[in-house]
């Protein structure tokens, strides 16, 4: 209220019918900015709606055609077709996260709280560079360098830890397995998780860090008491962004994996479940008619998977809201 009266006071000292005292004068800058902000928000929503609309309309024929007809045309039922790929997508991303998240948080903490300042900034720079490498390059590296290099390790895992379901089966001779694809994915999502968590860790209030130190916390205890709890929501968001990238990553996976429509826990064999994105990329060029619709329905499935994963993450974050430190 006060700001309204103040702003009018300096502009219109005497109230006239055209300029009633209580009407705030709109400033050009305000108007332009609020227009821009609203416009951007609406644009994002529009694009999202258009993509979702496209997916729904184009996927509809594949979903609506009777199973018998699909069978007759040699496409197989949609659900039994998509399920192995959906599994492959989620499973490969799961392993990627399992490897990337602890490493990324470790690096982020090292940069924010352990490394001397000079080392910290150059390390941060290197990590950001990693994010700039195109995924094709990661794919090439994964299939030509990484796969042969880790293959002996896979043999070892299979021989000595083969009783664990993940490592059982006939190990691949080329090393181009789901685990290799997951390692490549892990490397690809490492930078985004690292740099976002580092930003969050750096913003931990000094006040709370000093509170922990003054109680006689060691540096690691201080991190556990003040830094990690403060950064929880930020860590979850960064992991979700990383996961989003892993779920949708196409080239790297397509180049490393020779996928098969199987659902398996084994990650060292040459019979690997493919991912949805890779399947779409590999099959789209030759697809026509109903096959195209089927692939787009696959895209819709991926969209839904990502949406569900994100919602779960938001749910987790909001459950801790009361203790988030935002109040």
């Amino acid at each position, binding site marked *: 209220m006060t700001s309204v009266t103040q702003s009018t006071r300096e502009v219109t000292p005497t109230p006239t019918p055209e300029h009633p005292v209580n009407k705030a004068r709109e400033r050009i800058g305000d108007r332009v900015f609020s227009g821009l902000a609203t416009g951007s928000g609406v644009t994002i929503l529009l694009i999202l709606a258009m993509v979702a609309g496209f997916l729904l309309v184009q996927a509809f024929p594949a979903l609506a055609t009777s199973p018998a007809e699909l069978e007759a045309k040699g496409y197989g039922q949609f659900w039994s077709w998509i399920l192995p790929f959906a599994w492959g997508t989620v499973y490969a991303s799961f392993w990627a996260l399992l490897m990337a998240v602890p490493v990324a948080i470790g690096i982020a903490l090292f940069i924010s709280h352990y490394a001397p300042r000079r080392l910290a900034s150059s390390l941060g720079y290197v990590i950001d560079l990693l994010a700039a490498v195109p995924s094709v390059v990661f794919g090439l590296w994964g299939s030509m360098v990484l796969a042969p290099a880790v293959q002996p390790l896979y043999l070892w895992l299979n021989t000595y830890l083969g009783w664990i379901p993940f490592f059982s089966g006939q190990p691949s001779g080329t090393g181009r397995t789901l685990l290799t694809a997951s390692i490549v994915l892990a490397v690809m999502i490492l930078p985004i998780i690292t740099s976002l968590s580092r930003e969050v860790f750096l913003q931990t209030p000094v*006040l709370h860090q000093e509170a922990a130190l*003054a109680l*006689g916390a060691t540096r690691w*205890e201080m991190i556990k008491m003040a830094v990690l709890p*403060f950064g929880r929501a930020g860590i979850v968001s960064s992991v979700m962004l990383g996961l989003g990238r892993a779920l949708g990553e196409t080239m790297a996976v397509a180049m490393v994996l020779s996928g098969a429509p199987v659902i398996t826990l084994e990650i060292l064999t040459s019979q690997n479940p493919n991912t949805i994105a890779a399947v779409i990329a590999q099959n789209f060029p030759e697809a026509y008619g109903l096959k195209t619709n089927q692939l787009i329905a696959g895209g819709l499935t991926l969209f839904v998977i990502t949406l569900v994963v994100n919602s779960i993450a938001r749910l987790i974050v909001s459950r801790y809201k*009361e*203790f*988030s430190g935002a109040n």
Partner: protein
Amino acid sequence: MSKRIEVNDLNCFYGKFKAVEDVSMTIQPRSVTAFIGPSGCGKSTFLRTLNRMHEVIPGAYVEGEVLIDGNNLYGPGVDPVNVRRQVGMVFQRPNPFPTMSIKDNVLAGYRLNKERMKNSEAEALLEKSLRSANLWEEVKNRLDKPGSGLSGGQQQRLCIARAIAMQPEVLLMDEPCSALDPISTLAVEDLVQELKETYTIVIVTHNMQQAARVSDETAFFNIAGTGAPGKLIEMSSTEKIFSTPDIKATEDYITGRFG
């Protein structure tokens, strides 16, 4: 439990900048010592050298010695973590851990010390600390709610409870009432009077009446000008400082005739 503190020729630095120069003083056990002086004269800086919190600021270091019952805090091989477990601190702005409940806040320091604590012990310590901080009645029904949901004054008393739950030998308070209303301030002052039965207390304050009310000894710090290091000008019994100080600058400051 309380200890005597002896400071000899202490200098505090922030990188190249010397913030406090050549301080020597003795603080008696079971007493309240107040630090007064104009803003920027190094009261907080000096206070933080008494529990080795000064050095957590990048580039900050200390020269000289601080003896607590004869043991030099800055001696070789002394672990600052152990020092801080014996010398508790309450900060100017209340800083309970926002991600912890009231209960966890109080027990945070104790949990660092002791590996495992029986549930009944923990409950007893929780109640005792909150009672000594005059907070128990206000929070006993919401111990599992976040500490950040309390009012400013309650948060500060929560921080005091957290510090005394550690059963420290010395309690340092840096302007503990600066964010509080007069009623909470009086509550904290009463608390200081009670706590001095058990602890050695050092309190920084800008409030002359507060220094006069709560402290036994008063130390006056001053600076010659911007960029110059802060110095201890005079330290004596509070009565003497507020009635017949030896040094003119002290008298000027106390009577409000400075600058």
